[in-house]
């Protein structure tokens, strides 16, 4: 393995897995939120207190990024599955696109969320 030059596509391949695992664990938060909503106002208030806290917001922000990055990185894999984008410059462009696009979409989603008053 050591003979390989560490490339962007290799690094992002690991990031795709890591974000996938993070999203897997993060579904616990989603379940907690939905089950609390089904349980009643007191349980729902607990979730809102957590997601409104600093640590809660950091986790949800991280979750948003993981989701957006994993989706774009997945679309990149889909392009490769279809047999396109294998030239060196195309590989790099797709990978940079997923990396930058994931960050841009995450920030955009949070701006919209705050703008419509969801950031309480």
């Amino acid at each position, binding site marked *: 393995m050591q003979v390989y030059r560490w490339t962007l596509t290799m690094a992002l391949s690991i990031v795709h*897995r890591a974000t*996938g*695992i993070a*999203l*897997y664990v993060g*579904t*616990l938060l*989603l*379940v907690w939120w*939905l*089950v609390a*909503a*089904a349980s*009643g*106002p007191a349980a*729902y*208030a607990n979730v809102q207190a957590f997601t409104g806290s600093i640590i809660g917001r950091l986790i949800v922000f991280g979750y948003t990024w993981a989701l957006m990055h994993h*989706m774009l990185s*997945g*679309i990149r894999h*889909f392009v490769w*599955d279809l047999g396109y984008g294998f030239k060196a410059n195309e590989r790099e462009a797709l990978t940079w696109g997923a990396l930058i696009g994931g960050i841009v979409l995450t920030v955009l*989603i949070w701006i*919209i*969320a705050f703008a*419509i*008053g*969801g*950031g*309480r």
Partner: protein
Amino acid sequence: MSAPDTPKRSMRTPLGRVRNLGAAHSGTSDFWRQRITAVAMTLLMIPALVIVMMLLRSNHAGAGQILSSPPVALILLLFIAASTWHMKIGMQVVIEDYVHNEKLKLVSIMLNNFFSVAVALASAYAILKLSSGV
């Protein structure tokens, strides 16, 4: 992986014996389902995000009202079905890649199935309960 034992007399070609099998011994069905669920989630991503944003700005009563709309409940149910199936397959691939002890691998894959099904059913139950307005 070692090749399966070759019977002394067989009309089957080596290719015929391994075709449609893979490291997982179950062929390409998981590979295909992984792509189907990925495309489904990509298509559902914008409506799902809109719903989450609507829910974020509302209190408990408001959230119940939003989720009582059939299209909203259906979009979330579809998203949960696709995502839990997708994550079950994805985690299984990771387990198969990194867990080499056969027994530990089987236990991990079993736990992965339990977790994914539990997440799917708990979420679906909560949405159905909310959407029926109980």
